[in-house]
C-alpha cells in the first residue's frame, strides 16, 4: 500500500527546499557577484547568474601580497596542526581504549573533566605566554592540539576493534606501539580521515588563537586578513575603486572574492567528505 501524496507532503517539501536553499544561496550569490562586471554589481542587478563575466576581482585578490602570505601561513598551520593533533589524539585514544593499561580510569577522568571545566581565557593566555609561544607558529597549533570530543570519538572507535588484531600482533612479537602503528592505524583510515578533517577545518577556521596569541602581522592566518578587510573595511571607500590599469573593481565584489578564496578549500573537499563527517559524528554518539 502506498500512502498518497497529501497537503502535508507539499508543506514538507517546501520547508526542506527552503532549508537547502538558505544554506546554498548565499554562496551562489557571492560567487556570482565576485565574477560579474562593475556596472551590473553597482546597479544591483546580479542575483543568481553572473553578468559581464570577468575575473578581475580574483586577479586583485591574488595580487595582494598580504593575502598570499596569509594563505601560506594558514596552509602551514593547518598541515602541521592536523598532523600533530591527529597523532597525539590517536595514540592517546588507543591507549585509553585498552582496559588493562595502568591508571587508565584516572587518565580517563582527567580527560573528561576538561569537558566541563577549564581554566578560562586569561589563565590559558598567561600560560601560553609563559611557555614563550606568543608570536610563533606553535601558538596556532599547540594550545588547542587535542579536542577531548575527538579523543573520545576515537577511543570509542578503537574499543570496537576486534581483539584478534592485538592478539595476532602479540604473537608476531610486536609491542603495543608496534601494534598501534603497524596494525591498528592502517585499519583505521576512515576514522583518521574523519577526525583529521575535523581538526583541519577547525584550524583553517581558527580566528580566536590568532587574535589572542599573534601580534606579528607576518604570521597572520587568512581569517585575520578577512576580518581586517571586510569587517574593519580597510579595503577602500564604498563603491568602486581603481586597482591598477583601467579595470574598475567594486569594493563589495572584492570582499566577496576574498571570502570565496578563503572558503574554497572547504567548499572543495566538502562534497567528497561529508559522508565521512557524518559517520564520524555518529561513532561519537555511541555512549561509551
Amino acid at each position, binding site marked *: 500500500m502506498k500512502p498518497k501524496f497529501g497537503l502535508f507532503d507539499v508543506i514538507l517539501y517546501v520547508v526542506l527546499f527552503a532549508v537547502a536553499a538558505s544554506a546554498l544561496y548565499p554562496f551562489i550569490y557571492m560567487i556570482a557577484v565576485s565574477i560579474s562586471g562593475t556596472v551590473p554589481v553597482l546597479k544591483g542587478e546580479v542575483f543568481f547568474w553572473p553578468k559581464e563575466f570577468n575575473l578581475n576581482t580574483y586577479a586583485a585578490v591574488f595580487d595582494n601580497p598580504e593575502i598570499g602570505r596569509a594563505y601560506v601561513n594558514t596552509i602551514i598551520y593547518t598541515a602541521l596542526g592536523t598532523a600533530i593533533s591527529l597523532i597525539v589524539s590517536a595514540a592517546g585514544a*588507543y591507549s585509553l581504549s585498552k582496559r588493562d593499561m595502568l591508571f587508565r580510569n584516572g587518565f580517563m577522568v582527567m580527560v573528561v573533566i576538561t569537558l566541563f571545566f577549564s581554566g578560562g581565557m586569561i589563565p590559558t593566555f598567561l600560560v601560553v605566554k609563559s611557555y614563550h609561544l606568543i608570536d610563533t607558529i606553535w601558538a596556532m597549533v599547540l594550545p588547542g592540539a587535542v579536542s577531548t570530543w575527538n579523543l573520545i570519538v576515537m577511543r570509542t572507535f578503537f574499543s570496537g576493534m576486534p581483539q584478534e588484531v592485538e592478539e595476532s600482533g602479540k604473537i608476531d612479537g610486536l609491542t603495543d606501539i608496534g601494534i598501534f602503528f603497524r596494525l591498528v592505524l592502517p585499519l583505521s583510515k576512515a576514522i583518521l580521515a574523519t577526525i583529521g578533517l575535523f581538526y583541519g577545518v577547525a584550524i583553517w577556521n581558527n580566528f580566536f588563537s590568532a587574535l589572542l596569541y599573534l601580534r606579528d602581522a607576518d604570521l597572520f592566518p587568512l581569517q585575520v586578513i578577512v576580518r581586517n578587510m571586510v569587517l574593519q573595511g580597510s579595503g577602500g571607500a564604498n563603491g568602486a575603486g581603481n586597482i591598477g590599469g583601467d579595470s574598475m573593481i567594486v569594493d563589495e565584489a572584492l570582499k566577496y572574492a576574498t571570502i570565496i578564496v578563503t572558503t574554497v578549500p572547504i567548499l572543495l573537499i566538502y562534497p567528497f567528505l561529508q559522508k565521512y563527517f557524518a559517520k564520524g559524528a555518529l561513532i561519537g554518539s555511541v555512549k561509551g
Partner: protein
Amino acid sequence: MALFRLKFNRSKYLLLLFLPALVYYILFKYVPMFGILISFKDYNPFKGIWHSDLVGLKYYEMFFHSPDFPKLLKNTVLLGVYKVVFGFPAPIILALLLNEVRKGIVKRLVQSISYLPHFISNVVVVSMMFLFLSPTSGLVNHVVEWMGYSSINFMQNENYFRTLYILSEIWQHIGWETIIYLAALSAIDPQLYEAATVDGASRWHQLRHVTLPGIMPAIVILFILNIGHVLDIGFEKVLLMLNPSIYSTADVLSTYVFRTGIQAMNYSYGTAIDLFTSVVNLLFILTANWISRKTSETSLW
C-alpha cells in the same frame, strides 16, 4: 608492589603512547586551571602567578559591584536562553521532517546541503552578515527598499543583535545537529510503526507515540549538554559582530573578559569573571543532569 611492577611492565608501551596526550593535558588544560589562582591575587607579571600578592575576593567584589555586571549577566543569560529556546528545537524539527521524506535521494540531498554552513568559519559568516545586511549595498536592504521601506542598518542597531545572532547560529548548525537525531530515528524498531499502522494510528499519532519517545533519550542528553553551555556564548562570533553602538545588548561576559582582561591587561579581574562563568556553567550542567536522572533515568553519568 610486585603486582604494580608487573602491571607497569605490561602497560609501559601503552603509557608511552599516552604520554604526548598526558603532557598536552597537563600543560594546556591543568596548568591553566591552577592559573585561576591569580583571580585571588594582584597579578604582577614580574612576580609571576605564584608570588603575586593575595587579595582574597577583591576582584570578585569589584565585578559584582561594577555597573557593567547586571547588563553583562542579562545579555549573556538572555542570549544563552534564546539559543536554547530557539536553537535547540530547530534541528529536532528538521530531523523529524527529514524522517517523513519517503524519497531517499531528496533526504540525502537536503542533508548534505544543510551541513555546509557548519564548516564555514565565524569570520566568514559574520563577514557575510555585514555584507548582506549592509545599509548601502546589501542584498537584504535591496529587498527591504524594493518592498517600499527605507533601508535598515541591522548590524549597528542593538535591537537586532540577538535575533541576528540566534538566526545565524541556527543557519550554521541546524543541518549538522540533525545527524544525531537522525541516527536515533533510524534506530527505532520499524515493527513499532507497523503495529501503529495496524492499530490505525495517523502520521501525527505515530509521531507522538512512537517517534518522539524513541528519540527522547538523545534529546535529553543533548539538552543537558546544551544547558551546561548557557553562559558559554560563542566568543568568536559575538566579538566579530560587536561594535560600540550595540554594546547595550551584545556585550557578553566573554567579550568583556577579552576587553578588560586581555586588551587592558587586568588579568586578575578578567580571570575572576572567567571563573564565575565556569562555575555557573558547571552548576547548570550538574543541576540539569541531577533533575534528568531523577525524572527520566537518562543522564550523562
